[in-house]
């Protein structure tokens, strides 16, 4: 990891602790509660680091569940756990609602070539990604949008599902482990270019 980025991430955590601790979270506006998020997820919705997910325009239920899981420790993250731990359920839902209404950021990722798209579609037909992520991978409810997500984040989180480093959705771990690495690479390229 880049040392400066590591330093800044530590800064995010430290600032989160200071800011969230300085004022009761229920006395903060939604902008105040979500300011901290821009440090990594981007002030314009474009993540600063490509391995960090886009949350602008993401499904509300999905964002809420991830915040809940960070707080519970079901999804591990030294950065997100202290931030999410400051919030109660209603606040998480409000934060999730706030970001879900932001426009989905265009990360400018290239559309996958035809052969890659076809391979991705075959992989989808085999394990049924769109059975949950829905048509055109837009997501709904507690299932995330994948279309246009950062490619490096997709690569990282799929790898984390496969290794169970991301353990808050074993169903996804099962499906990712049942899919070949080459097919997953094609899916990552295809999805990021949608």
């Amino acid at each position, binding site marked *: 990891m*880049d040392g*400066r*980025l590591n*330093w*800044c991430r530590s*800064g*995010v955590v430290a*600032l989160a602790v200071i*800011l969230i601790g300085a004022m009761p979270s229920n006395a*903060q*506006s*939604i*902008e*105040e509660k979500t*300011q*901290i998020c*821009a*440090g*990594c997820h981007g*002030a314009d919705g474009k993540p*600063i*680091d490509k391995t960090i997910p886009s949350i602008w325009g993401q499904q*509300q*239920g999905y964002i*809420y*569940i991830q915040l809940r899981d960070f707080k519970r420790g*079901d999804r591990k993250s030294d950065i997100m756990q202290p931030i999410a731990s400051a919030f109660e359920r209603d606040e998480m*839902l*409000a934060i*999730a*609602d*706030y970001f879900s*209404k932001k426009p989905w950021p265009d990360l400018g990722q290239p559309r996958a070539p035809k052969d890659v798209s076809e391979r991705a579609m*075959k992989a*989808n*037909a*085999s*394990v*049924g990604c*769109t*059975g*949950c992520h*829905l*048509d055109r991978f837009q997501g*709904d*409810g*507690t299932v995330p949008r994948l279309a246009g997500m950062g490619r490096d984040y997709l690569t990282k989180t799929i790898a984390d599902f496969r290794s169970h480093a991301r353990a*808050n*959705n*074993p*169903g*996804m*771990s*099962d*499906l990712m*482990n*049942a899919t070949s690495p080459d097919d997953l690479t094609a899916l990552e390229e295809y999805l990021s270019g949608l």
Partner: protein
Amino acid sequence: MNKHSMVCATLVGLAGILAGPANAQETKQETKSAAGVAAVSPVTQEQLNAADKNSKNFLLTNGNYAQTRFYPAKQIGRDNVKNLHVAWIFQTDVKESLETSPIVVDGVMYVTTSFSHVYALDAKTGQQLWHYNHKMGPITTYCCGPNNRGVQVLGDLVYVATLDAKLVALNAKTGDVVWSTDIADPELGYSETMAPTVVKDKVLIGTNGGEYGIRGFLKAYDAKTGKLIWTFNTVPENSVGVWATKDATGRDMHRDIQAEKAQLAKTGDPYAKLGGGVWQNPAVDLATNRIYFVVGNPSPDLDGSNRPGDNLYTDSLVSLDLDTGKYVCHSQYIAHDVWDLDAVSPPVLVNVKDKSGKTIPGVIHAGKTGHIYVHDRKDCSLIRFSEAMVPQENMWVLPTKDGARMLPGANGGVEWSPIATDPGQELAYAINLHQPMTYHVDSSPYPNGKLWLGGAFKVIPSEKQSGNITAVDYDTGKIKWQVKTPEPMIGGILATAGGLVFTGEGNGKFAAYNSSSGKELWSFRAGAGVNAPPSSYMVGGKQYIVVGAGGNTQVDFHRGNNIIAFSLD
């Protein structure tokens, strides 16, 4: 400035921004638009009881309480069906998987779409009368698409169950909400896609969630108030059963009973997270005041290691007393299922021949296994099962880490698609999938309402898929005729007194067949997957056939948003 410096600058700037103004938060609003009022008379219980003889309306999801999907009108018949043409097309606001069974009351049609929208339409013209856009909660957790299979009407209320696990009663004339009640917690994996069955002032509703570690149920609510009357847990606290080693057809399921008993001693009965959803409507036997329904798969789908025992009453036909919800009998098709070849297509009440040839009240169910099972209605016991309607290979090989090939694939056979029957011909009509798959197992602990498959089902890309329409003589179990289709079939089928069956395909084809021979007599291309059960009705002395063409999420058929009604010249 590089990106890392920007992070730091952002952090430094945060404190100064924190005092910014609060945004007014938007809330998802329930909306209702009305172009008119649905001029309907209240639907009486007597009308519902006699729905099987009603050649004007289509009052229940599967035609009548016996769920025969046999429509008694015969204006459209074998001789003139070739003249069938589009009467009108209504385009819904939702272009996503469409599984609705249109309900028709006195010229007013009620249809639903994905995400729990409800529309009232003029059944003669397709004109929208009102639209109920459900205010969906932020948490929805569902398998196999945001589907909705329809409504039922009693009195002046229209009942719909929603994706966020609510039961809602709407004013049949206006679409206004009269009452709404929470059925279960969607954060724990509960959701609703089935149409309610309303009978004797009770609204009967099951639940989805077998892929999320729920404890399944069938509930009865007071139709006037929405108050809960009874709950039947589809998984009893003693779910162990008889340690069955063979399925209902007598085939060995390769269970390791000793290992299961050791697991039971170690972790106890797994009933609390054992799944057992109820995906489709119960049939109602008005003469005995009993209901019959089927229960879905155990959780997790493919991993049986942490759920020792038969996992009662998953993968079973179950009968209850309508008034009390008390258990009467059951018959389990697959004990300790690790293939998700569960029971989802709604059961049908017909008279059948028992083993001695005597005609008795029966109940039949089409399984994902590809068999039609014929039961004695009195005690649920299995009388016979049909010839397999789809290829079966390597049953019951256990799932492995790298995947074991077995046919049928996990969607069936017969999925949730309702069958139709023609009691005069003693035939049941089922639509089937053929999707070769490998079954993979991977153990993981209960994930708090998340997807919990315990492995994966994988379609084998190199193997050809197909489907079929099959007519089975339920008194002999023999296949009478079968029509092969180029793609797997999911949606539903309707038989009519005109000697026809109507069904659709994922490629957009909607067709009529001679119900005695399977000969195709008419077809239409809808432009999107016809993966919904057809209905029929009469308005102004004219018979109509109506069906949704919206594709399907589960099998990924081309999406659309059309409700299409057909009539003769």
